[in-house]
């Protein structure tokens, strides 16, 4: 009952990941001689902290956001990728190879495999908010869009996502270019100041995707920081008034990356399962389930053109504008700033 039986036995692979992956179970099991057990997780930080707390012997695979992979590497929780086993890796967009080289490589070994991705900007209700030059300023200046949005703005309830938006708004884009995000203390202070002031015009901070959609549809706010996949989901379900903005300062991109536990007794089989995540057909299915594109462009073959418009085909040029999630250099300072913003 409960917790699962540990990463040892037979050819069972235990996976800690997001809800949508569970839909791949039947196909993976028919493609490979394996039983996969999915355990739903709702955040990368939880995947990380539970592995950190010893769950790494219970799970073979986790699929956190890219910025958590270096942390797991640092904590010595993950095993290197046998590139032969993960045959689909080569097919990924170049951009992801670059990202992986930058972030997931240590001592010549690769530790994570990008699976799917998406990006954040903001979205707005096009019925009430006029078109405007898309910029993060829309989140910080109530009149920026040409209509007063005081009290109708929403930010992510996540220090990294929310503070990054503020940093980009303040023009600290350079800080996002290295291995890690490197905001100086004074930049963090400015971000904090800006966000504390922003609190007056905010309607609130919001947890994550579905509640964003629910709240947006309910009319609680007009414009909010959001991921593209949420808006795609709304479109797919017939709500056409939201508009996704691509801010001129750049979008923050996330990509989920699969890792395999160092303690797994079935590493090879585990990597074979990971390989399935980015296989063209299964990757397409995952994209559909999560309204987010796969890192493998070959998935487009298995999607309709309409689907490809929304989340299948992404122009490589757009990928180049994206700023990938990264670990931050002085996370404590970020967190303290965030706490001060929240309790201001």
């Amino acid at each position: 009952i409960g917790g699962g039986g540990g990463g040892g036995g037979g050819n069972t692979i235990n996976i800690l990941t997001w809800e949508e992956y569970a839909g791949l179970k039947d196909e993976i099991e028919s493609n490979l001689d394996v039983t996969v057990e999915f355990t739903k997780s709702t955040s990368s930080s939880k995947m990380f902290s539970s592995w950190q707390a010893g769950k790494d012997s219970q799970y073979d695979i986790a699929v956190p956001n890219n910025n958590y992979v270096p942390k797991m590497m640092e904590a010595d929780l993950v095993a290197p990728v046998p590139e032969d086993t993960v045959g689909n890796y080569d097919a990924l967009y170049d951009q992801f190879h670059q990202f992986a080289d930058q972030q997931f490589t240590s001592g010549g070994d690769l530790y994570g495999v990008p699976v799917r991705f998406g990006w954040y900007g903001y979205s707005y209700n096009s019925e009430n908010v006029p078109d405007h030059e898309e910029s993060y300023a829309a989140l910080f200046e109530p009149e920026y869009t040409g209509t007063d949005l005081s009290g109708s703005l929403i930010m992510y309830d996540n220090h990294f996502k929310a503070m990054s938006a503020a940093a980009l708004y303040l023009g600290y884009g350079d800080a996002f270019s290295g291995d890690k995000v490197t905001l100086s203390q004074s930049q963090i202070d400015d971000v904090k100041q800006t966000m504390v002031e922003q609190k007056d015009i905010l309607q609130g901070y919001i947890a994550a995707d579905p509640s964003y959609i629910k709240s947006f549809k309910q009319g609680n706010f007009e414009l909010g920081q959001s991921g593209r996949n949420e808006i795609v989901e709304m479109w797919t379900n017939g709500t056409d008034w939201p508009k996704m903005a691509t801010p001129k300062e750049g979008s923050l991109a996330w990509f989920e990356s699969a890792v395999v536990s160092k303690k797994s007794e079935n590493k090879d089989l585990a990597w074979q399962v990971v390989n399935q995540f980015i296989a063209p057909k299964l990757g397409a299915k995952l994209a559909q389930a999560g309204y987010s594109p796969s890192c493998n462009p070959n998935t487009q073959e298995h999607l309709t053109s309409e689907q490809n418009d929304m989340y299948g085909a992404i122009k490589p040029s757009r990928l180049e504008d994206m700023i990938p999630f990264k670990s931050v250099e002085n996370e404590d300072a970020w967190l303290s700033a965030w706490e001060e913003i929240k309790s201001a």
Partner: protein
Amino acid sequence: MSSETSSRSLRQQLLGAFETRRSRLSVTLGPSVVWLVLLLLAPIMFMVTVSFLQVNDAYQIIWGSPTLSNYGALFAGDGPFWETAFFQSLILSYKLAAVTTVLCLVGAFPLAYLLATRGGRTFKVVIFLVLLPFFTMYLVRAYSWYLMFGPHGVINSTLLKLGVVSSPVALFGYGQLAIVVGLVHAYFPYMLLSLYASLDGIDFSLVEAARDLGGSRIDALKDVVVPLTLPGIISGGLFVFVPSLGAFITPKFLGQGKVQMIGQLIELRITSQYAIDYGSAASMFIVISIVVAFLLAFRYVSVEDLGGI
């Protein structure tokens, strides 16, 4: 035959277990003492210890060099300590917990008074209606208020629909009011039952005695009922104040991220960073608050009076 003798000796053993004072005590209290020591005292003591230690990047506790730096970190910031997030959250938590306690008291007293003074058929129904929310999951109750509040929640949309207001009332959005309402709803039954237990023990002929001697209804309440229910008021207060102080779910749902109570602050640090050193130090303030609250309470009531619930 053999089963007969063995059952007899089992019986003898059981009887024997109550022969001496020492064995009686160890049989009855032993197991719970072990449990409480291992699962309450030890963890709390360990937490106290951790609050004086540091945790390295690999999330290992660094033993051997006690430090006050975690406590320092709580109050460190650019500005004076009262501007730090921790201090602000702490104060806010005290404030919301205090308001919650007072509202619970004000709301519960009339109902408890009626329940204690009026018997009969309606009594059972009312008790049922009061107990049901009490037994209903905390999370469900917090959630039900999550539906009620919000810029377009049930309250606002109803007001809009009825034409009472023309645009959503900010007061009924998420925020401190919503949190207080949620907390009152969550912990109200503790206060009610505590007061009820205490009022039910009152000899109401004392109220009549006060009236007979020339006291008005208000006098009787003030001079007799309130002093005599003081233990109930205090233990009810304790049972509302302490958990409100450390509330997490309610402010999480009903604060929409703009309000940060101490529980959320700790949770954030633990789940995002596994910062158990910082979390432990911060938790100490809740633990100390409980100790102080208990010590204050014990000046007016005895431990038995806390047995209301």
